[in-house]
């Protein structure tokens, strides 16, 4: 669809805003509706729009599977890593209070932000992987 001017330019205008909205939903999930899962899906949809419009060759250059594959596990590792970190700090697994013993609620807020980021990374990378693998049949 790269040769279609309207589709190409509309995608070019929309993608930055979709990405910004995705990051906003992940980062702002504690205050407004949303969170890692929804934000991750929105980030992935920006990539999918790009891949649909510009084709797999260009989308591979933006985010190759060599990057997106490790990202799928990075999110889970961040999530579980927060749990291990709280254990090393002397608490229970995923006991965010230990992240800031002087002020436990702040530790909770920090822990929640970190695990939401982990969820967002894994969800967006997995959605991108699903799309890449399912559309593999179209290539060459």
């Amino acid at each position: 669809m790269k040769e279609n001017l309207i589709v190409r330019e509309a995608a070019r205008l929309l993608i930055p805003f979709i990405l910004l909205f995705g990051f906003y939903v992940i980062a702002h999930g504690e205050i407004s509706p949303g969170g890692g899962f929804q934000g991750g899906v929105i980030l992935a949809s920006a990539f999918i729009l790009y891949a649909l419009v510009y084709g797999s060759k260009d989308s591979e250059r933006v985010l190759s599977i060599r990057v997106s594959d490790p990202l799928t596990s990075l999110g889970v590792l961040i999530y579980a890593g927060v749990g291990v970190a709280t254990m090393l700090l002397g608490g229970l697994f995923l006991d965010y209070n230990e992240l800031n013993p002087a002020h436990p609620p702040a530790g909770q807020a920090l822990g929640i932000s970190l695990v939401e980021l982990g969820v967002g990374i894994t969800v967006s990378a997995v959605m991108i992987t699903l799309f890449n693998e399912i559309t593999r049949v179209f290539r060459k």
Partner: protein
Amino acid sequence: MTTLTLDIILLFLLVVSAVAAISVRSLLAASMFLAIYSLLMALIWVHLQAVDVAFTEAAVGAGISTVLLVGTLVYIKSDEAPAPLIHWPSLAAVMITGAVLIYGTFDMPPFGDPTAPANLHVAPYYIAHSLEQTQVPNFVTSVLASYRGYDTLFETAVIFTAGISLILLLRQSSKHKRKKRS
């Protein structure tokens, strides 16, 4: 009154799109009807003030799932095989199960009842303490990520497993084909 009208309109459209999704022959049209179904479902969630769920439904149900379903259609025939004649035993099984489930709902507390068991267990504690304990105003997020942190960790692991399985299944098979061809 207007809320009731809105409810009736949304639920009516929901049933129409669900019936349309299972009755059309073309699987592409069925995917589109499922997307419409998800979008209507998202509107219903908003109307029930479950905005977080509505957000997920709109992003995943109406968005990503549709793209993935349409992508899957490339692998398979895009028309459903002609339906066989009505299978009476299964129709009877479905009707009886449905009737039992509807009968079961008569014992459920009314929607939004503050004295319903689901609203008396841990929910009041979360509502009362979430802000002071976690500094997180949206307590849907604090319940998911902190009070129910293990659940969300393993949900993330499930998504990760789904991605890995798809890589193993599809990437390996396409490599295999390439080897055979050369």
